[in-house]
């Protein structure tokens, strides 16, 4: 039996990558189609079930129209059972919609179990300390448990130590937006599929879903990349560049392998000489047309040889020593020094 595991789609969420209204609308539509795409893949691969481990929607402000579209999509694939657990971002608005599809299985606030052949699907919407103590699963079945929250081997919402020895073959989790797998015990593994489509630059990298293969002996799984667009944060060290053209060329080289359809944030790092003309806006304008979305985060700093100021009796030296001797954070110290030195040089403050 094949099963698809996904979570954290956050449909109808605001896009945190700063896009114009048209692209925001487009991305939101892509997110919705992503869910449909996963369902379609499940159907084409002959999957019997799709697990949605929470945060299908972003908030209680999710529009009823979106919820109905999702409901219709689930209904469209009536040969697949959809198992749905609430996430921390959701209310029960979706569960309360009238005329929900029959192939949608919703879990309650306590352990609820469904069964398809030799596979059980157990889940609950609310997490509680000691919840695993009341969980009882048959040993001779393949048991899948579905939860949404932070899991760890220790003091956490979902304590994997407490889940050990409970005949769990696969703990389908949601909450963290990056794919990861944690061992529960010899029998089972806890897996976060991550979000299937990144929304902001805090969700960079390959995104997708997890495909489970249930056999009489065990449950194996693979991560399947599946995102319309990938977000990238690419560092670009501009140390040593003396002109705007050099910076642009180095940046261009760093972005060479990124597909056009993706969203890119280039982070300039390193140091630059005070006389280097660094025009961030011009760089953004140059690169913008190459990608679906492009922005620059400038973390570069003007080059300052702090050592040379150690024995400098001038005001500059005194200033540098004053700043370095303070208990300010290092990053702030660098900026203050850069600003002060530019100001003392009579130049526009750069930091």
């Amino acid at each position, binding site marked *: 039996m094949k099963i698809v595991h996904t979570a954290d789609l956050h449909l109808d969420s605001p896009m945190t990558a*700063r896009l114009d209204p048209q692209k925001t609308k487009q991305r939101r539509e892509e997110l919705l189609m992503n869910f449909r795409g996963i369902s379609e893949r499940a159907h084409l691969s002959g999957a019997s079930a799709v697990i949605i481990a929470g945060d299908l929607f972003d908030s209680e402000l999710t529009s009823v129209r979106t919820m109905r579209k999702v409901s219709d999509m689930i209904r469209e694939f009536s040969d697949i059972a959809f198992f749905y657990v609430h996430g921390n971002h959701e209310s029960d608005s979706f569960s309360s919609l009238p005329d929900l599809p029959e192939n949608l299985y919703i879990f309650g606030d306590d352990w609820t179990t469904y069964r398809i052949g030799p596979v059980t699907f157990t889940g609950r919407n609310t997490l509680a300390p000691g919840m695993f103590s009341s969980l009882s699963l048959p040993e001779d079945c393949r048991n899948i448990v579905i939860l949404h929250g932070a899991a760890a081997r220790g003091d956490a919402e979902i304590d994997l130590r407490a889940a050990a020895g409970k005949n769990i073959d696969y703990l389908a989790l949601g909450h963290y937006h990056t794919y990861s797998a944690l061992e529960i015990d010899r029998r089972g593994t806890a897996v976060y599929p991550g979000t299937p489509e990144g929304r902001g630059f805090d969700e960079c990298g390959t995104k997708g879903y997890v495909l489970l293969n249930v056999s009489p002996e065990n449950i194996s799984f693979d991560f399947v990349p599946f995102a319309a667009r990938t977000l990238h944060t690419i560092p670009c060290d501009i140390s040593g560049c003396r002109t705007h053209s050099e910076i642009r060329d180095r940046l261009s080289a760093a972005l060479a392998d990124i597909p056009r359809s993706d969203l890119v944030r280039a982070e300039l790092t390193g140091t630059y000489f005070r006389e280097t003309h660094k025009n961030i806006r011009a760089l953004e304008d140059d690169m913008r047309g190459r990608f679906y979305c492009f922005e620059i985060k400038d973390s570069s700093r003007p080059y300052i040889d702090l050592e040379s100021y150690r024995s400098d009796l001038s*005001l500059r030296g005194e200033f540098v020593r004053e700043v370095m001797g303070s208990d300010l954070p290092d990053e702030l110290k660098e900026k203050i020094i850069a600003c002060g030195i530019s100001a003392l040089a009579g130049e*526009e403050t750069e930091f």
Partner: protein
Amino acid sequence: MKLISCHIEAFGVLRGTDCIFSDGLNVLLKNNGEGKTTLASFIKAMFYGLPKTRAQSLEENERKKYTPWDGGNFGGNLTFEISGRRYRIERFFSSKPGDERFALYDADTGRPSSDYSEDIGESIFGIDAEGFERTCLLSEKPHPASCTNSGITAKMSGTNDVSEELGSYENALKLIDKERAVYEKRGKKGLVYELEENISDLRIRIEDERKLIAEENAIESEIAEKAIAVSASCERRKELSEQMQKLFEKKKRAEIVKYHRAQLSDIALEESRFSECDSFFRRGSCDKAELDSAEGKYRKIKILDDVIKNSASHERTEKLAAVYGVPEAGADMEELAGIKEAIYRSEIEDAGEGVSDEDIKRMHELETSLPGDIRKYPDDSFGRTFKKYRASAVIFFILTFISAAAALLSPMTGLRLAFAAAALILCACGAFFTISAIRMKKTFADYLKRLGFPVNSSDDLGALLEIMKKSQDEYIDIRGRIERSESKKLRLAKEIDDSILAALNIINKYLPEEETAGVYDPYSDAPAPDRARVKSLADRIISEYTEYRLLSDAYRSTEEDISVKKGEISRLGKEVSEYLSHYPVGDAEDPFGAIREKIQQREILINLIIRKKETAKKFAEDNCISEDEPASVSPEEENALRAETDAEERIYARLLQEKTALEKKRDAIALSTASYDSDCSEEERLSAEYEKAKERLTVLKETYKYLCAAKDGMSSRYLKPLKSSFEKYMLMIGGDKDGKYTLDTSLTVRREDAGELRTSENYSRGTKDLFDIALRFALIDALYTKEMPFVILDDPFITFDAERCRSGLQALSKISSRIQILYLTCHESRANFG
């Protein structure tokens, strides 16, 4: 360094004055106005020149002040020693700073020296003129509150490029201030504040939008519920419509059955009439041949009787022979009898023709309910026409759209106008066909409503057409039957009339004209002959001919025949009586006529019943009517269904109205929240900008703070030794052992008294001057660690009391052992260094 000598060519009151300076203390006791201060100013001017100023007052304009009163070469020279080398400065001034002359010579070799430039004072002392005045030259000028200036500070801090460094510091602070003002200004202004305000406003708007979105979602849910209710109501309306249609069908069916029942009732009535008629023949035969035979016998009896009675009468016989004694009389009578039979058959057939009252009533009903337009269209042509109208309307509107688009896209004005005009015309045509189609449909709907069929706006026209067609077919069928029946009756009437005319032709041969006059006149208004009269005349001549034949035969008979005839009369009489006894003719005058009438009536009824049965059977077969089908529909059932339909219509209308209102409200909210995404993006952008602005502001503030701290740090490096030195001189000059002093980076002295730090402003003039003198010497110690300068003191103890003055003079004596002092005073008491 030390001064060696000077020559004043002309400087203020001094002219041609020479001074020799020794190491250590040089006391110059001069009266007021003899040039002590001028000498001090001259020495300073040699090192620093005269300041360039536009001030007009003498206090502020030294050039003006010291311009020689008697003219002469304004300036002089000064010889000094520094680092073991002796130099001679020559400076001559003028009223214009540009005309000044400076020269430096090596005093030992007499050669010009380039070791120092015109800024020799700054080069040697490392401070500007102001700094020099605040340290090495204590003149009669009022002392500033602070002893320091940037030059002193720079020198004490040991920095090179003093003025440049300090200039950059001041500029840096200005730059930072200027940039800081962009981010933060007094009175809640600046970019940071503006961003804060904008973000706050945006967040309030976003929060409002979120509330609206939540409201929109709630309304959306309500709309969904309403949609379900509307859908359910629609289903229910459809069900009720189907029920109504079934009821209508049932009603129509009941009408059909009722009609059939009416047919059967009619048949039953005819059968009852037949039974009644047939009862006449209960004991007797209804055979016409038997009747003719019996009647013939009856006539024969009469004739035989007449013959017996009037056996001798020739008159009657001759009379009859005169009429009927022609050879063709027999054939004519036969023909006449045939015509009579034909008329008889035709009349029977005619009596059986016709359409029932129910059919006529139904036809009138359909006639009055069929609307005028429909009459024009036979069969399916209405449906075809309606479809044509509808298709035409669609085509015209499409053409209108194309013309309008062409009008918008046309580059030329003329073409645009032409297309616009065409669009208008096409639109009008489309509207015409649309209205016509709508009217046709409405006519349909009205027609069906009149028939009692419940019509909804969503009903399929095809179904309506079918219903109309059925009604129309029914109407056409009834009308056809009526027309056929009428046509047949006309034909039969004509046949009868033709037969009557044929009979009349024969009759006219045998009867005199006056007897047949008035029977038929083709030139009169009467369209047809008097049938009854003709039949009666035909009967008469047949009877007369029969009589003639009988009389002829009887006339030829003899006496023997009479008894035979009597016997025959008796026999025939018995037979006739026997025959008549089977019929309830009673004492009818013409029993055989009565029987004949009954036979004819019976035959008519039989034909009628057969025909009606056939019609009823065909009707039942065509409409599949069964015996037990009901012929009516309960009015309560219909009323209840109508009431429920009306109620459901009201519910549907209300639900639709409510749904529409909710949708409008939702759409209005959606419009208000259309900018939610962009507002969120904008809030994010502004928040990022705000954080960046705040960070920049923090950096600027910290930079400013640390620059000031750096400057203070530089200054405070020397403050500690300076303070110690100051305290030393306070003790030395003022005898102050226990004073607790502080010194800040602006070299402001504060003394702790009564728990408070007090500046010199809190003390007497003499104490102020004491602070000043002690600080100057402390500064000299701090500034000149390698080569000590000379110090010029112009009556420094003028405000001191005697004891303090003594201490001061003693201190000067000690100090002069390492610093060359030029002490100027105008009073002996202050020149007593003993």
